C-alpha cells in the first residue's frame, strides 16, 4: 500500500511539469504582459523598464526553465496587480474555496447513495422513476442559473439569505445547495445503475440463497461491488465542482480561489494565474489519488500483485 502511494505520488511531479509547461505557453500566447502592466499612456521606456523588472525581456527558453524551477519551490513570483507573493495569495483563498466545495461533495455522496439505493430497490415503481426524472432535471439545470435564481428568490425577494460575501455561514447556504444539486444528479444515477448491475450479479443471488436479511444483502453484498465507480466519479466531481467555482464565486462575490483566478485572468496577472492553476492541478490529482487508494483498500482484487 505504501509503495503504491509512493508510486502514485511520484507521478505528481510529471503532472506538475506538464501543467507548468502548458501554463507557460498559454500565458505567452495571450499577449504582451508588459504593455498591459504599464499605464495606458506610458512611454516605450517605461514599458521596457517594466519588461526588464519582471524578467520578460529574457529569451523564452530561459524564462521557461526559470519558471519550471521556480514552480517546484512554489515560487510563482509577485502578483503584478497587488505586489504580494502569488503563492501566498492562492493559499489564503484556497481554504474558503475548499469550504465551499467539500461539504457539498459529502452531501451529494450521501444524498446520491440514498436516492440511488431507493431508486434501485424500486426500479419500476413510480417513486423510483420520479426520482430519476428529478435527477435528469438537476442535470439539465445550469448551476449558475440555479444560483442566480436562488439569489433572486432568497436574497433579493425574501431577504432571508445574503446575496454575496464571505460574511458567515448563511452566505454559504446558496453555493452549497447549488453544488449539492449539481453533484447529486450524476452521482445518484450512477449509484442506481451500479446497484442494479450489482443486483444481477451471481454473488448477490448467492447471498440471497444463504437466507441473509435483505438489508445485509444490500449493504454488505450489493453495495461494495457497486462502490468503486462511484468513488472514482467522486474524484471527478471534485474537479467539476471546483471549476464551477470560477463562475459561482464571482457571481456571489465570494473571496475564494475561483474569483481570484477569474480576476487575475482578466488582469493578465500571470504569477497568480500560474500559482492558482498549478495548485488546483496538484490538488485535483491528490484527490483522485486519494479516491483510487480508497478503492484499492475496499477491493482486494486490486491489491493482489500479479500471480507468481
Amino acid at each position, binding site marked *: 500500500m505504501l509503495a503504491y502511494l509512493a508510486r502514485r505520488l511520484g507521478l505528481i511531479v510529471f503532472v506538475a511539469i506538464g501543467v507548468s509547461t502548458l501554463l507557460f505557453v498559454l500565458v505567452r500566447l495571450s499577449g504582451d504582459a508588459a504593455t498591459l502592466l504599464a499605464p495606458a499612456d506610458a512611454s516605450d521606456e517605461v514599458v521596457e523598464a517594466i519588461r526588464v523588472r519582471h524578467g520578460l525581456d529574457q529569451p523564452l527558453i530561459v524564462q521557461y526553465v526559470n519558471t519550471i524551477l521556480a514552480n517546484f519551490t512554489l515560487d510563482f513570483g509577485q502578483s503584478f496587480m497587488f505586489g504580494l507573493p502569488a503563492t501566498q495569495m492562492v493559499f489564503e483563498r484556497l481554504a474558503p474555496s475548499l469550504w465551499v466545495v467539500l461539504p457539498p461533495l459529502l452531501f451529494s455522496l450521501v444524498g446520491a447513495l440514498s436516492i440511488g439505493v431507493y431508486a434501485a430497490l424500486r426500479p419500476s415503481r413510480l417513486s423510483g422513476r420520479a426520482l430519476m426524472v428529478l435527477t435528469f432535471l438537476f442535470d439539465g439545470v445550469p448551476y449558475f442559473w440555479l444560483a442566480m435564481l436562488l439569489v433572486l428568490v432568497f436574497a433579493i425577494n425574501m431577504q432571508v439569505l445574503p446575496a454575496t460575501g464571505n460574511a458567515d455561514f448563511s452566505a454559504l447556504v446558496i453555493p452549497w445547495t447549488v453544488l449539492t444539486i449539481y453533484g447529486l444528479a450524476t452521482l445518484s444515477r450512477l449509484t442506481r445503475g451500479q446497484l442494479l448491475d450489482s443486483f444481477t450479479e451471481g*454473488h448477490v443471488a448467492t447471498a440471497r440463497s*444463504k437466507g*441473509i436479511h435483505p438489508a445485509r444483502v444490500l449493504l454488505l453484498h450489493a453495495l461494495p461491488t457497486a462502490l468503486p465507480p462511484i468513488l472514482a466519479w467522486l474524484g471527478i466531481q471534485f474537479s467539476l465542482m471546483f471549476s464551477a467555482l470560477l463562475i459561482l464565486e464571482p457571481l456571489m462575490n465570494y473571496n475564494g480561489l475561483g474569483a481570484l483566478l477569474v480576476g487575475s485572468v482578466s488582469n493578465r496577472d500571470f504569477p497568480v494565474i500560474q500559482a492558482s492553476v498549478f495548485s488546483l492541478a496538484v490538488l485535483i490529482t491528490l484527490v483522485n489519488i486519494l479516491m483510487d487508494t480508497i478503492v484499492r483498500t475496499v477491493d*482486494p*482484487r486490486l491489491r493482489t500483485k500479479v500471480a507468481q
Partner: protein
Amino acid sequence: MNPETDDILRLNQVSVGLRTAGGEARILRDVSFSVERGRIVALAGESGSGKSTALLAVLRLLAPGARVSGEILVDGQNIVPLRGRRLRDFRARTARMVFQDPWRALHPMHSIGGQLVESARAADRSLSRKAALDLAGDTLSRVGIPDPHARLRSYPHEVSGGQLQRIVIAMALVASPSLLLCDEPTTALDVTTQAQILELLQELNRDLGISIVVATHDLDVITDIADELVVMYAGAVSEEGPTEQVMARPEHPYTWSLLQAAPGRHPGERLRAIEGRPPSPLTVITGCPFAPRCEHRRQVCETAPLTPVSVAHAPERRSSCVRVTAASAGSMERTSG
C-alpha cells in the same frame, strides 16, 4: 403420489410465469417430480428447458415479477407461501444452492472465511464467530481443500476454479442443509475438475446422506452419479425414471434425440443435432411441446397432455409421450430403430 415414500422435495403441478413486454412467458408448465430422501436426481434438458428455473423456484429465488403456482414441498412443507423471516430461515437451513459459475457465485471483495462464516451463522445464529470459523475450516478440509486455514484468509480471485467450486459447496455444507441444489455445477470447469466435483457430490451424498438435485445439459457427465433422471423440455417434464433405465431405453422421443445428439455417441460421424428449435416460452402450447421437432409425430400428439404419466410396462417410470403411454408398446429404441 405414494404416501409411504419419504420425499425431501416434491413439486406438484408447478408453473412459473413471467410477464414480459411480449406477453406472459411460461417458463415452467405443470412440472411435477419428486426427490426421495438421500437420493441424487438429475434434471436434464437443453438451455431454456426450465431446469434452472425449477431449482431457483425451490429456493424462491426467481425474478421479482415471477408468478409461481402449484405446490413445492420441501421436507413436507409447502414453501410457495413462505415470506420474510420464515423464507430466509428456510433458505439458510434446509435447502442450499450451488451455482454454475463459482467465480460469479462468491463475493469478490469478501474473504473466503468471511463468506463461509456468514453462511454458517445464517443457519445457526447461536454459533459464535470463532466456532463458525472452526466449522468453516473443517468443512473446507472435508471437501478436499488443502491448507484450509490459509484458504480462509484468501479471496476468491486467488483460488483456482475447481477449488472455488469446492469452496462454494463447502459454503452450502456449513449450514448442514438436507437438500443441495446444484445448477450446472461443472459446466464452468475444465473436464478433469468436472469429474472431481461430481465425485465429491457423490461422496457427500453417500457419507452425509444429503439429497442432491443436479441440473445439467450434459447427460454423460451426470449419469454416473444420478439415481434418477428427470428430462425436461420447454418448461415441462418429458420423462422421469431410474437413470440406467432411461439411458438404456428412453420412453420419450426427446430423450432419445438428446442421447443421440451427445458427442461420442456415433464416433466418426457428424454430430447429430435435433432439427428445429425449442418453442419460445411466449407461445401457447397445445399438446406435446416436442411434437413439431419429433420424427414420430402423430395426430394424437396435438392433444396430448403436458404431464407425464406412468409407463405401463415400467411402473417406476413416467413419460409424457402419448405414443408410449397410450400404447405402452415399445421403447424408443424399438420404434426408431
